[in-house]
């Protein structure tokens, strides 16, 4: 399988680990990511609210390039319905591209003015020709859990993972590819496939604060604190994310949050592709480990994937507490486990 690939600016710099691990995972799973030539910034989250025409032109340029490069001669890039598939690993890029494609379809005037702007650069975009997909959704739906499981050689036994979606992938719900906007479960299922232990994370679709750190730091700190607090309460070893913005906020601002609230959170924030790579037996170095600010060393030790692991005792499975009180309702996942 071959897909158009739009890494976006973050993956060039602060989220380089995401890019490296994505490409590594793609090699293992055997799908090809064909990077869009000459792509530009998607405008991130604010631009679209400030200057509509410029923002749509900025995004439209990427779509037009994708149409040109993958649709016209898109051998292997096309979905069953004939649209060229463009994978965006960053949730903000995904939302911008998907949103622009939708609004350009619906609004003829916007389409015409945007295309007029694009024409200045010799480009043209026909809305609906590019199918923008998020990396997570593509891996879950196209590759599938079974195929992922087949490649797991070093399962992440004992690692307690909080799966964090953030808000941009699930809302607004511009596509129905994920199971639920309020409470998606794909990332958990994927993490479980890798052998890790999934902890409940009620705030998994709550906002990380986005660029609020630059505008009103205190508001952002509170939003970040809630997430860290919640994951800590559920005794997570790591938070796994699908979005560079979320990763940046939770990782880079963790120390500030600790200072601000007098807390001592110490949660590494990783990309889901990094965990996949680990489970596939790839070396942490080749997956961008070490680039994170809150070190993931302890997590790696826990799953015996660090040079220092030898010193650490193997994780013991917590003994099941004897049941007392009233039984809990049976959940579908429990049935799978016992079956």
């Amino acid at each position, binding site marked *: 399988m071959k897909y158009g690939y739009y890494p976006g600016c973050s993956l060039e710099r602060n989220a380089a680990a995401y890019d490296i691990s994505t490409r590594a995972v793609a090699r293992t799973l055997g799908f090809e990511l064909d990077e869009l030539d000459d792509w530009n910034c998607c405008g991130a989250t604010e631009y679209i609210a400030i200057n509509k025409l410029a923002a749509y032109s900025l995004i439209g340029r990427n779509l037009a390039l994708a149409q040109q490069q993958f649709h016209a001669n898109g051998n292997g890039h096309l979905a069953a319905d004939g649209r060229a598939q463009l994978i965006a690993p960053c949730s903000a890029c995904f939302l911008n591209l998907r949103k622009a494609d939708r609004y350009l379809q619906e609004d003829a005037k916007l389409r015409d003015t945007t295309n007029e702007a694009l024409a200045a650069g010799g480009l043209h975009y026909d809305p609906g020709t590019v199918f923008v997909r998020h990396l997570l959704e593509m891996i879950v739906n196209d590759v599938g859990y079974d195929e992922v499981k087949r490649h797991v050689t070093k399962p992440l036994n004992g690692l307690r993972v909080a799966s964090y979606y953030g808000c941009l992938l699930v809302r607004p719900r511009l596509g129905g590819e994920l199971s639920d906007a309020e409470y998606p*479960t794909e990332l958990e299922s994927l993490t479980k496939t890798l052998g890790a232990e999934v902890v409940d994370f009620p*705030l998994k679709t709550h906002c990380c604060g986005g660029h609020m750190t630059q505008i009103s730091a205190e508001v952002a700190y509170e939003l970040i604190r809630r997430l860290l607090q919640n994951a800590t309460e559920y005794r997570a070893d790591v938070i796994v994310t699908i979005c560079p913005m979320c990763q940046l906020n939770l990782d880079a601002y963790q120390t500030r949050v600790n200072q601000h609230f007098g807390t001592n959170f110490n949660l590494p924030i990783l990309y889901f592709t990094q965990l996949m790579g680990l489970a596939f037996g790839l070396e942490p170095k080749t997956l961008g480990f070490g680039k994170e600010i809150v070190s993931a060393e302890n997590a790696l030790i826990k799953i015996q994937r660090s040079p220092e692991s030898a010193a650490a005792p193997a994780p013991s499975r917590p003994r099941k507490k004897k049941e007392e009180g009233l039984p*809990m309702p*049976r959940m579908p996942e429990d049935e799978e486990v016992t079956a």
Partner: protein
Amino acid sequence: MSDELNLENAEERIGVYICHCGTNIAGTVDVAEVREWAEKRLKSRGVVLARDYKFMCSSLGQELIEKDITENRLTRVVVAACSPHLHENTFRTACKRAGLNPYLCELVSIREQVSWVHTDKHAATDKAKAVLSGGVERVRHHQPLEPLRVPIHPATLVVGGGIAGIQTALEIADAGRRVYLVEREPSIGGHMSQFDKTFPTLDCSACILTPKMVSAGMHPNITLMTWSEVTKVDGYVGNFAVTIKQKARCVKTDLCTGCGICQEKCPKKVIDEVYEAGLGYRKAVYTPFPQAVPKFPVIDKPNCTYFQKGTCKACEKFCPTNAIDFNQQDELITVEVGNIVLATGYDLFDARRIPHYGYGRLANVFTSLEFERLTNAAGPTNGNIVLRDGKTTPKVVGIVHCVGSRDRNYNNYCSAICCMQSLKFAHLVKERTGATVYNFYIDMRTAAKAYDEFYQRVLEEGTLFVRGRVAEVTDAARLPGEEGKLIIQVEDTLAGKQRRIPVDMVVLSAGLQSRHDSKEVAKLFGISCSADAWFIEKHPKLDPVSTMTDGVFIAGCCTGPKDIPNSVSQGAAAAARVLTYIDRGEITLEPVRASINEMKCSGCRICNNLCPFNAILFHADRMVSEVNAALCQGCGTCVAACPAGAISGTGFSNEQIMSQIEGLLLLNLNGAREKELAYA
């Protein structure tokens, strides 16, 4: 007239009647115009008179037809009015009263199919003319028929032993008729047996239900078949042959005294997902509850140590009357009945489907049915309202209404009982724990006798009401005072602000849903389901306990959410309908049947395998096929398939349908189809 077309039916004298239905038809269709057109243009087709009248179905309207039949010697009647499913019988009966064979009357629908669905008056009037013309052409080929008479078997099958089914069974049995009451679970009683109190009177559910269960169990006219399921239904109204699978109880009911020692000795504890709603335990050999009817336990084979591992037999060892029989097999029993009543009840909406309400993840989120068990003195906590740890009494309780109801993501409908049930819960929590109670509602619906008074009472008791749909139930604390609590996030639409309310316990008033297998059940009994898989009534207002299938009736929650009084009323109503049939002794059926003209039959046998009812016999000696009229249901598939045109179907013959097509296309007026209708 020299038109040769008129000669074949020259003797037919057709009367045409066009109903205004008040303004229902006349508001959209120019009724007078249609009448004039019919008088003039259909005259050549045998129409001798056309009339329009305000309400044809009124007695005056019917008398009009009767008078015309007598005075104007009508030989056929066409009424253009509502759907034949509503008034076909009315007008046929009118014809019959005037001495005309009722099957020489044709009803064409210009209300459901014209005036109610179109807005353009010209187009609607044109279509009404075409539809009328089709009816006139068709009626010319009607044959005088006699209805088929079928005797009614006096026994009745009642499926479902909840309160609706019990009521039906008792009513019919008290009238002296045999009833087979079939229940899937080991005991009758249904959902009502799980409740503690019933709103709004707060009488004890068991106290009012148990006597009825006992009467049903002991009634000489009721054959109780619990732990049983219907597997096959053959026949038709008056003469059903129903096959019932009696699952192996592994207990000899003639020896068992119901002493309960086997349950005491059984070493295998199982979570009771049905009766205790997953909140309590039972043994592998069990009666669901102490007042069970019948008193005999069943052995739950998939959970029984003996059946799974081959050893144990504790129950057998300790049974004082040697009533345990591990070798019992499932048994198929066939009973003959004349009528069937379905009272199969409902399933609770699965609250796990709304993950942000946390049911199944957050220990102290309960469903309404779990809460019923919590409050029940015979339940797992002896009626103590406590958290999932089994001991802590909650200080603050939040009750969430409309869980899975009135929600386009799940079920659009209102589940009817949840408001009152939630009020009952609020009252019980207050009374037994003194806790603070919040009710989160969208609208309060307390519309029945003494219901709103109960609401007022709960209001006065100090229960807090927040109007707004709950967005989320979470344990992620954010503000001081939230730690260790469940937080209900809700928009208070009266105060116009977002609120976060920390509570100890959340009760989800889950809505009612059709049974998970209701579609299969409907198929088994040949009735239809709505999109929500509730059973469909013959008429939602005027015939709520009948179905489109003669002899199959429905009662209780299987037709939609209902409270206990309504379920009981429907159970009794269904019984009354059944008794009417039984007392009449026989029923008349539409004489829509196929028959084969032996002279034309080539004996090719194409029709033989097409018949789903095996109604077509082949006579090898004469090389012809024959239709058994008693088995034929009149679908007409064989008629359409016969290459020789040897089969004809009464009421729906080739001539009738071909002529109707001609009439609809106005070919009867020599093909001038659009010109005829063009409104200058």
